[in-house]
C-alpha cells in the first residue's frame, strides 16, 4: 500500500510541477499580451482587439491549475481554529471528510464544466474566433487535477504519510 502510494506520489508530484510551470508560462504570456496592448495603442496608435479576451482566457488557466496544485501543496486559505478543540482521534476523519468534499467539487468541475463546454461548443468566441468551449477547458482540467490531488491526500493520510495541512507553509515531502 505504502509502496503504491509512494510511486503514485512521484507521478502526482510531476503532475503538480508541470501544472505550476504551465501556469507560470501563462502568467508571463498574459504579461506580454497586455504590454503589447499598451504599446500598440500608445506607440503605434492602433488597437489590438484580441489581448483582452485572450489574456482573460489565460488567466482562467493559471487560476484553476494553480488552485489544483494548492490542494496538493496545502497553500489554500482556511480557518482551522475549531479543529484545535476536537480530540486528536477525530481529526484525520474530519480532514478526510474535507478532502472528499473538495474532491467532489473537483468532480463537479469536470462533469458540469464539460456539460457547459458542450453547450457552447458551436459558438465562436468574440475576437479570438475559436470555439467558446475553450472557455470551460480550464475548469474541466483544473477539476480533474483537484480530484487526483484530493484522492492522493486521502490515501496518504490512510497510509499514515504526511499530508499538507491547509494554511501550513510546510511543504509536502517528495519521494
Amino acid at each position, binding site marked *: 500500500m505504502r509502496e503504491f502510494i509512494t510511486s503514485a506520489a512521484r507521478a502526482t508530484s510531476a503532475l503538480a510541477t508541470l501544472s505550476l510551470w504551465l501556469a507560470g508560462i501563462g502568467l508571463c504570456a498574459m504579461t506580454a499580451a497586455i504590454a503589447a496592448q499598451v504599446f500598440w*495603442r500608445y506607440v503605434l496608435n492602433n488597437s489590438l482587439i484580441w489581448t*483582452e479576451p485572450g489574456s482573460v482566457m489565460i488567466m482562467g488557466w493559471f487560476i484553476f491549475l494553480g488552485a489544483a496544485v494548492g490542494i496538493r501543496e496545502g497553500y489554500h486559505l482556511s480557518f482551522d481554529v475549531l479543529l484545535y478543540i476536537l480530540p486528536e482521534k477525530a481529526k484525520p476523519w474530519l480532514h478526510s471528510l474535507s478532502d472528499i468534499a473538495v474532491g467532489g467539487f473537483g468532480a463537479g468541475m469536470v462533469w458540469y464544466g464539460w456539460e457547459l463546454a458542450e*453547450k457552447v461548443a458551436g*459558438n465562436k468566441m*468574440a475576437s479570438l474566433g475559436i470555439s467558446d468551449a475553450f472557455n470551460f477547458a480550464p475548469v474541466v482540467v483544473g477539476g480533474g487535477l483537484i480530484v487526483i490531488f484530493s484522492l492522493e491526500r486521502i490515501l496518504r493520510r490512510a497510509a499514515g504519510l504526511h499530508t499538507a495541512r491547509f494554511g501550513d507553509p510546510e511543504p509536502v515531502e517528495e519521494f
Partner: protein
Amino acid sequence: ERTLRSADTHPDGYPTVEAVKAMGKMLEEKTNGRLCIEVFFGAQLGEEKDAIEQTQFGVIDMARVSLGPFNNIIEETQIPSLPYIFRSPDHMRKVMAGPVGQQIKDAFTQHDLIGLTFYDAGSRSFYNSQKPIHSMADLAGMKFRVMQSDMFVDMVSALGANATPMPYGEVYSSIQTGVIDGAENNPPSYESSGHYEVAKYYTLDQHLIVPEVLVMSKKTFDSLSAEDQAAVKEAASASNAVMQDLWNKREEASMEKVKAAGIEVVTDIDKTPFIEAMAPVYEKYVTSDKLKKMVEDIQATE
C-alpha cells in the same frame, strides 16, 4: 402559484426592467395568480452571456438580453446588428414586428429558447471629448471604445477610426484621462453612465439600432399548459407598448438633461458616406443566401 425568474443587466427602473415587471402583472391577472414574474435586475445573476446560458439550461426562466451576445450563437441575429441596416428606430420596430422578426424568433427554438418579444434599445451614436464630428474625415484616427464584438470593431475600422474594446466600467476614467477619445451609445446610457460629463460632443449618426429580446427557457415554456403559454406570449407582446412608451420618455429626458449640461449635439450629418463605407462589413458578415435575403427584406420594408 409559480414565480418565473427573469434576468436583466439594466438597473431597476430601466424601461426593459419595468416592462417585464408590467408583463408579470398582466400575466398574474390573465392566469388568476398561477404565474408571476420576479425581475433580477442589474446583472445580479450574471452578465448577458451568462443569463443566456442559464436560461438555456432552465436555471432561470427568462432573460432580457441584447442581440449582441447572440451574434456568435445564432447567425440570423447578426442581421439586425449590422451597422446602418435600419433607417430609423421606427423602421426597426416595423421590421421586428414583421416576418423578419418572426424568422429570428423561430431561430431561437433550436437553442432551447423561446423568443417572446423584441424590445427597443434606441439608436447608438458616437460621442467624444475632442471635437464635434460632422463627417467621416472628422473620425479619422480617433479612438473609440466599442463592445467586444468583431462586427462593431470592423464597423469602427471601416469608418477610419480605432476600435478599442474595454470594460464598460473603465470608460469614464479612460475618456477623462485621454486613453480613448470617446465611445458610442444610446442617449439614456450616454446620460446615466455619466459619460456626457467627460465627452461633450454627441453626433447622432445612429449607426446601430439593435433591438433587444426577451427570451424564455424552452424547458419552462414546455412545462406550461397551452393556456398559460398563450398568456405568456400575449403578456409579452403587450409589455412592448409599456416598454416603448417608457423608452421614448426616457430618451427625451436624457437628451434634455445632456443638452442642459452644455453638450454639443450634432444632428445635421450626411449619412450616405458612412453607409457606403459599410460595404466591406456587409460583405464579411452577410454571407449566405438566407442572410442576403433578410437584408433585402429589411431594406424593402417601408
